[in-house]
């Protein structure tokens, strides 16, 4: 524990800017993955343990698309859209068969998908890791704001993720589809009785969830290594985000993802040996005070 270093950091603008940016980028990418987990749980009450696979495949598809098109924008779009499509196929072919089954059955289906696609990735892309490399447009020196370091690539990523958070929030609260999704989250039987095509609705939810995870994988690919099984590490943190934020709450996912990002950003200065442990301490503390999570509904 190094409280002096943390105190010094919090009173230095350069350190605050650098560590806050660091926390924001970790948090925003986490939010994109966790938003899908919480959306799917909120509407379908399915805990999608295969969600990390969408993140992994999004990264790999973007890696291949960049090689084929030489355009990072197209690569990101390919990663997101292909995973949205994969989300629909996953829901229709597998998950729709275990609605209402016990959690163990759902877990087994998801785990099978994780293992199958980890092996398929090894066959298609090889067992070794890959790195996409930074797009030429972002191979520029970092910005210095109040003495703090802000990489332009991260600033753009934070902007994109922030925009998606706003679109998702507004979409859920203002549009007809969003309202229907929220209604289905509360009472799916009633929504079905009212004549809404819930089959289509559930597929859309999986498309959005999968697409967001694929987008996160594709956006992060220039700076994170691609390797089979890489989805697992983000999956665990996504669940922590979902639990802290409240199962099913998009706002909760955003707030808790940013919270985890900032805990990581500043925790590494003050608690270098205990940064990961600190996240779990925060989670336990929040769950003791609010068992349903920050924005969750108590049942």
């Amino acid at each position: 524990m190094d409280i002096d270093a943390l105190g010094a950091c919090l009173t230095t603008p350069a350190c605050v800017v650098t560590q806050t940016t660091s926390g924001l980028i970790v948090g925003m990418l986490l939010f994109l993955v966790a938003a899908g987990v919480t959306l799917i749980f909120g509407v379908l009450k399915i805990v999608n343990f295969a969600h990390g696979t969408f993140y992994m495949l999004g990264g790999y598809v973007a890696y291949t698309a960049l090689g084929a098109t030489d355009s990072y924008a197209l690569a990101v779009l390919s990663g997101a859209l292909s995973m949205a499509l994969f989300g629909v196929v996953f829901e229709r072919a597998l998950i729709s068969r275990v609605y209402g089954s016990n959690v163990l059955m759902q877990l087994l289906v998801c785990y099978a998908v994780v293992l199958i696609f980890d092996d398929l990735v090894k066959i298609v892309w090889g067992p070794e890791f890959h790195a996409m490399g930074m797009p030429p447009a972002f191979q520029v020196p970092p910005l210095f704001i109040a003495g703090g370091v802000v990489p332009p690539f991260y600033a753009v990523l934070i902007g994109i993720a922030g925009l998606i958070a706003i679109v998702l929030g507004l979409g859920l609260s203002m549009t007809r589809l969003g309202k229907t999704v929220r209604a289905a989250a509360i009472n799916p039987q009633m929504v079905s009785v009212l004549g809404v095509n819930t089959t289509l609705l559930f597929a859309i939810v999986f498309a959005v969830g999968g697409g967001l995870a694929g987008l996160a994988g594709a956006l992060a690919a220039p700076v994170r290594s691609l390797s089979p099984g890489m989805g697992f590490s983000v999956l665990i943190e996504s669940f922590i985000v979902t639990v802290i934020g409240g199962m099913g709450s998009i706002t909760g996912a955003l707030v808790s993802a940013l919270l985890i990002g900032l805990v990581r950003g500043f925790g590494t200065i003050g608690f270098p040996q205990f940064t990961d442990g600190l996240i779990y301490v925060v989670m336990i503390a929040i769950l003791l005070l609010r068992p349903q999570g920050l924005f969750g509904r108590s049942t």
Partner: protein
Amino acid sequence: MSGLITRRTMLGGSAASLLAAPWVARAQANTLRVGMQSILSGPIALLGTSSRNALMMEQDRINAAGGLLGRPIEFVFRDSKGQPQEAARLTRELVNSTGCELLIDAEASSGAFAVQEVVRDLGVACIHTNSETSSLTADPKIRVPTAFRVARQGVHDAVAGSAYLSEYANAKKLNKWATCSPDYAYGRDTTAQYLQFFKQFKPDVEVITEAWPKLGQPDFTEVITKLIQAKPQALFTLLYAGDLSAFVNQGNIYALFSQIAVATPNVDYPVLAAIKNLPAGIQSATRYLETFPNTPANKEWGQAYLKRWNERPTNWSWQNTVAMQFYEAAIKKANSLDGKALAAALTGMKINTPFGVDGTITMRDDHTTIGYAIGWGQTTPKEPFIVDVKAADWGKIIELETDWKKQQKYI
């Protein structure tokens, strides 16, 4: 009519098979099976596969030269998935059920220690090709009469790296250092070992901050920004493979490498190939480099590997190749495959090989190799990737290794 098998043809074929059966059986029995188990799946499968590739090249070379004791050799490869208990089980199975008469243990350290105890029990000859943990052979309690190591050793690397880095730090006046290594036994123990020797060579060195990211951590941003805040003059890191690649890519966008000097022993061809914007001037060891030793034989082997597998060899590749070169020489000398006879032949043996710093590598009395190529230089984004390579002083390595062994009460 053609295409149908008549009763007469069938009978004739069966008779021929019966007559030929003993010959087939004898041919199979004549084949010398060599068992090898390694990590052939999972995140570091690339290293296990590169071991297998090198051994398949050795199999072809040895068989083209008439085999061992006049018998063709055949490798039996098994995947331990990096699990020590599986490695131990497979070793026993390779000898008892598959009929392997020699063993190549191509496990990382965790598996090698498990295999060591099985070999102690079986008494068969075994060469560990990838474990770098010094105590495997340095500690007399762990050492096994018929087991040897043909791999770089942690303590050798630590002395060589520290000696090079202290000279570099003195020349550049770098006293404030940071460390960033994976948070498990290898990262923590080896960092401590490097620092011990580093402080011995350069007493005024100061470690002002440490970072211990998890193995396989996707994001190193907070580690990088912490390093920027601490303002060290130089960084020593033991991150490797995908973690090192991600760290470099993420450090690049913070211009980390223009702010501090970086040193790592772990830059090898797969990392070099994967990092798209490798910063120039990282101080790095040569785990395997085609241009060090800069000899035609080393270059020829590296190119042959590249041509056959369409990828570059790793550190594990050359180590497995040398293991077979030692077996070949020892079997010729002992004229036997018996574990004890081979152990006697291997002990103190010196062989000519492209991977020795002077063209030779010696198997020391304590069952580990010395004289292999250890060099440090600096990275450059294009081939040959590491330039200005300086060879380590093996006299100094052995002197400090002996001191270390005394400290550990191994001698």
